[in-house]
């Protein structure tokens, strides 16, 4: 119980100390406000932005692009991953493209994607999906391949179909690994959306940052950056929560090590 309290209290104390230091350091080192705003200014901008409603459309569009792209990218990663892990022939057919795309920095494709899909949400969704695809895909294939061959033999000895083996043995085995991929992808999804907005957009938190540079509105930039960080933290927490529910047997193991450590 005391450990739990410290778990919550210590990070809060640390953040408060940091904000106090930030606020005072500006005066100590005479940093001009157009380079680094005080945390109070950022707070005020956040307050005005969200209570006044100016930030909501930007937050909404970034969230929308990020989540739709994430679902498309990770969804197709799971399908393609399953196909490749199950069929050696299809693996050989698809593999050259996978390797080629994987070694290419996806961000380099962003301008091209904008040209093809326009300035609207579609281009960002495509970029996000592309960036999200690989971590989930690679982890999905690795997870499915890590299935214990004895278990597959056992099911085969009972005349189980390939589908039965896939659903009952391989997929649950891979679940932990798939979630590791989904975790990485969710962070990349946010990066993808912001990069897309940097290049060409009329809305979104990335656009907000970009447009604030024109009039040196650093407070708004910081407000947008904090909003992005907040989205990242919440999205990661959501994935982790779902993971804990789905892959409960691995959580159990983790829970044991935590209680042993304390």
């Amino acid at each position: 119980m005391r450990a739990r309290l410290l778990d919550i209290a210590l990070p809060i104390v640390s953040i408060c100390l940091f904000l106090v230091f930030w606020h005072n350091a500006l005066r100590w080192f005479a940093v001009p406000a157009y380079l680094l705003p005080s945390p109070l200014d950022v707070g005020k901008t956040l307050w005005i932005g969200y209570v006044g409603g100016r930030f909501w459309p930007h937050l909404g569009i970034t969230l929308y692009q990020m989540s739709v792209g994430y679902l498309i990218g990770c969804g197709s990663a799971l399908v393609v991953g399953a196909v490749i892990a199950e069929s050696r022939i299809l693996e050989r057919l698809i593999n050259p493209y996978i390797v080629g795309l994987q070694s290419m920095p996806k961000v380099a494709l962003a301008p091209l994607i904008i040209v093809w899909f326009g300035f609207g949400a579609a281009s960002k969704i495509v970029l996000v999906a592309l960036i999200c695809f690989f971590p989930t895909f690679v982890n999905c294939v690795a997870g499915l391949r890590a299935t214990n061959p004895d278990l597959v033999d056992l099911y085969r000895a009972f005349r189980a179909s390939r589908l039965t083996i896939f659903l009952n043995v391989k997929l649950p085995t891979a679940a932990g690994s798939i979630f590791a991929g989904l975790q990485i992808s969710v962070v990349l999804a946010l990066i993808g959306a912001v990069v897309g907005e940097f290049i060409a957009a009329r809305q979104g938190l990335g656009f907000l940052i970009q447009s604030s540079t024109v009039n040196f509105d650093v407070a708004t930039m910081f407000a947008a950056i904090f909003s992005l960080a907040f989205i990242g933290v919440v999205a990661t927490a959501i994935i982790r929560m779902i993971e804990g529910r789905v892959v409960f047997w691995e959580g159990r193991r983790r829970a044991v090590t935590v209680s042993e450590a304390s």
Partner: protein
Amino acid sequence: MRDRTDGNLEAGRLEISDLVVTYTTSRGPLTALDRVELTVGQGEFVAVLGPSGCGKSTLLRIVSGLLAPSAGTVALGGQPVAGPRGDVGIVFQQATLLPWKTVLDNVLVPIRTLGRPLKEGRERALALLDMVGLSKFAKHYPNELSGGMQQRVGIARGLVHDPSLLLMDEPFGALDAMTRERMTFELQDLWSKTGKSVLFITHSIPEAVFLAKRVVVLSPRPGKVLEILDVDLPRPRNLETMALPAFAAYCNHLRALFGSLSTLD
């Protein structure tokens, strides 16, 4: 628990004759088993003893129908084994349980996969868990159990669908020495209660002599039957059995046999 399906009194009789298994590898054909002759009578406990790389696991895959022989015949209950038939139980070296299923659901895997009636299956599963001393753990998950307990679950799973033959591939190989010895006694007990035919693969000489009616000794690659040793020791065997001069004589005989090969690592 002593039950036999189909009224076939010889359903658990395994006859292997002239079995040859050859794998194609990148370096050419590799013979894993060479003209193996082996019979397990209904209700008999037969141990296959051999050094690593003698094709013991290949034998298991052949008998369970997962692998087709290159030559020779394998028949279980008078019927040739032409593919997986679902009437053998398999126990692996590792318990290989599904960590996302409870102990009871793990034991029920053969029942569900074979599409057998679940109600009777569950009763049987609970009875078997009781026999291996785990009735209290039916609702637990495998990773809450010790290695020995997990392997007991594996044995219950191997028996739940009332197989004609139980195949055990070094089932106690991954356990610590003390647990291993206790499990050996328990297995004898379970065998005498269920009356199953058992093909028990091991590389432990005392384990083979203690449990088996017959010990089939395989040579290293390619696996050939070197000798079939009838173990004539009274049952039930216990700690005193292990102290008998006859027990030591059997073990020494087998050790000498492997010693002459000088390949036992």
